């Protein structure tokens, strides 16, 4: 019984060891080269002062970054932000923030009718 078990383990090892060795050789080059991840645009390095807005490349970059920032704003779950402590948010620039609540109020006040 014991001899049979040792023989079986020996056979498995005989198959597994060369198989593992061969598969390691197959992935010997840098796997990072093949790992294509969906990267987001890195807009932090854009220098607007140096951009020529007549250049299609500059316009395309602006469009990409604006679209990205808009979609990331839309993905934020505002309903979970009730318990936000605004006193701890010293770095926030309120002048750049979209005032959605006011817009909503305006649309509901039927001034356009």
């Amino acid at each position, binding site marked *: 019984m014991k001899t049979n078990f040792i023989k079986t383990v020996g056979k498995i090892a005989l198959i597994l060891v060369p198989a593992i060795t061969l598969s390691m050789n197959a992935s010997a*080059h840098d796997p990072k080269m093949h790992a294509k991840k969906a990267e987001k645009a*890195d807009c932090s390095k*854009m220098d607007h002062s140096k951009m020529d807005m007549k250049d299609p490349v500059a316009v395309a970059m602006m469009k990409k970054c604006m679209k990205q920032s808009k979609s990331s704003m839309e993905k934020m779950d505002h309903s979970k932000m009730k318990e936000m402590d605004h006193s701890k948010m010293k770095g926030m620039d309120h002048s750049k923030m979209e005032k959605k609540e006011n817009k909503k109020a305006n649309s509901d006040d039927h001034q356009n009718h």
Partner: protein
Amino acid sequence: MKALKILLILLLLGGASAATVMYSGIVNVAADEPHSDIVYWLLEETREASIKKSAQHIKVPDLESPELLLMGGADYEYMCSSCHLKPGLEESDMSIGLYPQPPNLGISHETHQHGTDEELARQNFWVIKHGIKASGMPAWGKTHSDERIWAMVAFIKRLPTLTPEQYQVLTAID
């Protein structure tokens, strides 16, 4: 009649020689063994003439639109950059291993191709759409619309002028 016999014998001899070369296995097809200069020249000239002739009547649209750059950038990154490289990447497994070596499209076309911008654009469109036999260049036209291929042509036109940072923004997925 005698001339016809000689011609027939020559044809038979030619066919037999070609078959001997084909089936003897003496032609080395390994990609890490380059062609002789004369064979390389023959193949390159044949390829260039074929592309030039096939692409000559293609109408080139306006390639200056920013939307084309954004559409073409994402496709270039996923379909082309591993072989044709990009700003900040001077070689890859594919660019080293393929033979003939794919052109580095991150370098200005003046160093490896000739012709006006328009000629180059229509030739690039044709090559992307139809591919090149036995070169590793696929026919992307089988799975991509002409609009997407023109977008890639527009992007390739601007590629040599892009910095790695500009390239990253233009090719990123939304």
